[in-house]
């Protein structure tokens, strides 16, 4: 997918929200990601020069934390919970079935830009395990056979 163009005024607005405080770098990047669904290269460069933080340092933060993505994401984000409670109830098979159905690997986006498939270490809804979260909506007590009907709900 091509990089999208970023607007300086949007970025300035986010930086001002945190009073251009270098200590708020993680929150700033989170808000940028919420705006564009990922961290566009231009935005990362802009933050680096505006806050006076070396680009390498901004990238080290952006690549350290799992919440950040440097690649554009699909229209829908699927999070398959791989927490222990989900694991003992067969989460690995759910993830495999997700990969089969979306024809993509975990951590990647489908060619048509519809889904981004990711695993997450625990969403804290352990009683419902195995859990899949699509765009923030929880689907609990998943089975291999429930995967396809779940994905069909999204376009």
């Amino acid at each position, binding site marked *: 997918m091509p990089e999208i163009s970023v607007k300086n005024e949007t970025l300035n607005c986010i930086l001002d929200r945190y009073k251009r*405080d*270098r*200590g*708020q*770098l*993680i*929150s700033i*990047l*989170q808000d940028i990601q919420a705006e564009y669904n990922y961290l566009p290269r231009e935005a990362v460069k802009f933050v680096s020069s505006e806050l006076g933080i070396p680009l390498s340092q901004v990238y*080290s*933060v952006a690549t*350290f*934390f*799992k*919440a*950040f993505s440097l690649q554009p994401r699909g229209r829908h984000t699927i999070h398959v919970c*791989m*927490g*222990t*409670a989900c*694991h*003992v*109830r*067969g989460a690995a*098979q759910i993830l*495999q*079935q997700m990969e*089969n*159905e979306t024809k993509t690997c975990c951590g990647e986006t489908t060619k048509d830009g519809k889904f981004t498939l990711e695993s*997450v*270490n*625990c*969403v*804290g*809804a*352990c*009683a*419902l*395990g195995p859990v899949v979260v699509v765009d*923030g909506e*929880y*689907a*609990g007590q998943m*089975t*291999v*056979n429930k995967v396809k009907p779940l994905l069909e709900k999204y376009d």
Partner: protein
Amino acid sequence: MEELQKKRSRIMDSRPDVSTIAVCCGTGCQAFGGEKVAQAFREKIAESGLQNSVAIKTTGCHGFCERGLLVVIRPQNIFYQRVRLEDVDEIFNETVINGKIIERLLYITPDGSSKITSEEEVPFYKKQMRLIFGANGNIDPAEIDDYIAIGGYSAIAKVLSSMKPEQVIEEVSAAGLRGRGGGGFPAATKWKSTREAEGEPKYVICNCDEGDPGAFMDRSLMEGNPHSILEGMIIGAYASGSNTGFIYIRNEYPLAVKNAEIAIRQAEEYGLLGENILGSGFNFSVHINRGGGAFVCGESTALMASIEGKVGEPRAKYVHTSERGLYDRPTVLNNVETWANVPLIINRGSAWFASIGTENSKGTKIFSLVGKINNTGLVEVPMGITLREIIYEIGGGIPDGKRFKAVLTGGPSGGCIPENLLDLPVDFDELTRVGSMMGSGAMIVMDEDNCMVDIARYFLKFLEEESCGKCVPCREGLKRMRQILDDICEGKGEESHLELLEEMSAAIGDGALCGLGQTAPNPVLTTLKYFRDEYISHIVDKKCPAGVCKALISYHIVNENCTSCRLCVKKCPVGAIEFVDKKIPVVIHQDLCTKCGACKETCKFNAVEIR
């Protein structure tokens, strides 16, 4: 102070005795449509013009997530479980208006012998001691008045009006409160050394970066009763001499972030946060930081680095964070549940608190009881209760008549405890003694279908991915250990591997920089200790007794059970199952089979087995 008392009286007076419909809107029940059900009730109340006699309350998690969605009708305490949107009309017309009980929504005991009407009689709740967590079901987390009405913020009023900081520290110390986040370090000791440390300003931090997979009590507390945590933090700040606090919340917990933000704003409006709190001259403000999704940020120094906007790498703790922590200043860091205990100790006294629990572990602990267990959910129990009581009496045992195999406590830093230790009293020291630990309180129950080698490998893979990479023993050592376990799970293991695993575990335990690295080999060590025979089966017999490790298993049709109904043929994603003819069992082509398990899950006749 008096104003707060007046406010409480005003709130109580403005709330005549009305029926209340409490709808659980914790994350678990939200998945079953909690908010929609609450909205439907609101519309019913408006339609029938009963706004003055029936109230609706959207509460935090009640704990019994297995039975969601939960609805409780008060004051009768009628407990309805597995409620769905289509039940709203009936509940409203029958129970709320006519006072009749709807039998089909009641909880039935697992043996089917009796139906239970009231919340406190349900066995899941009966054995619990819900001191911290109990309020969740009674209050709307977005309403500070609800918290004040149940006596909230009276502890801070008592502290600011009649106690010196040193007295507060003494009281918490006498109560014997130990950190609920994992380490079990005495909370008062941290406060005292921060108070005595040189350097200003001082900070307090609430750790809500609940990265331990399988634990969700901090999330539920922050979502369901954020004011109790704030009150604890204000008291801790006063005691340790701090005016600034931070709450560090996982980004994966959006509702917790939202409710904490609302709570801070309301407490500021009520003069319970900010300048000159309750006219005492004490100032304290709280800020929220969202985590970026890194397990290691649950470690204190990594968390502090992350608040400073840096990469979350731990540092060596030659100097304690209570002396040089956040921005190199003295810092108190406690976990969500620890903070929530503080108001209770102040209100009811250290002697009362210390009377609960065991010699060195006082008070209660919230556990998340998950995995292969009938009653999944959050349970709060006094320290010293046995594992057997938690798993069988509160948890209702193992589903589908399967056999219990192990319970994992302490998450990736903990260990697997076998059946013969089920009578172990649960406290900080006993769990450590058997090679596990308390951790944040995740309790993952496993049955005969879980492979212990696979579990050990699961945690190593988790920790390998989450290792920050700063020190070699953790970064490289865990990777090598995981590769060895991969080999064992694929039938390529050798007997000498077991000794090597033990040797590497010892080296990582000695050599890693932070607590997470040092405890990382625990799941391997405990499974080797208690379930060595499973490792031997994988290595010598090339078999996975639990039928989990894919390279060592294959799916087969049980010919006598197969009705050739073709359900599995349709479900198989790779076309590996062949239909031959009616009345002839189907055939699985092993060369095509990906072992996804769809056939076994689909089959209604128990005709697919794992060998």
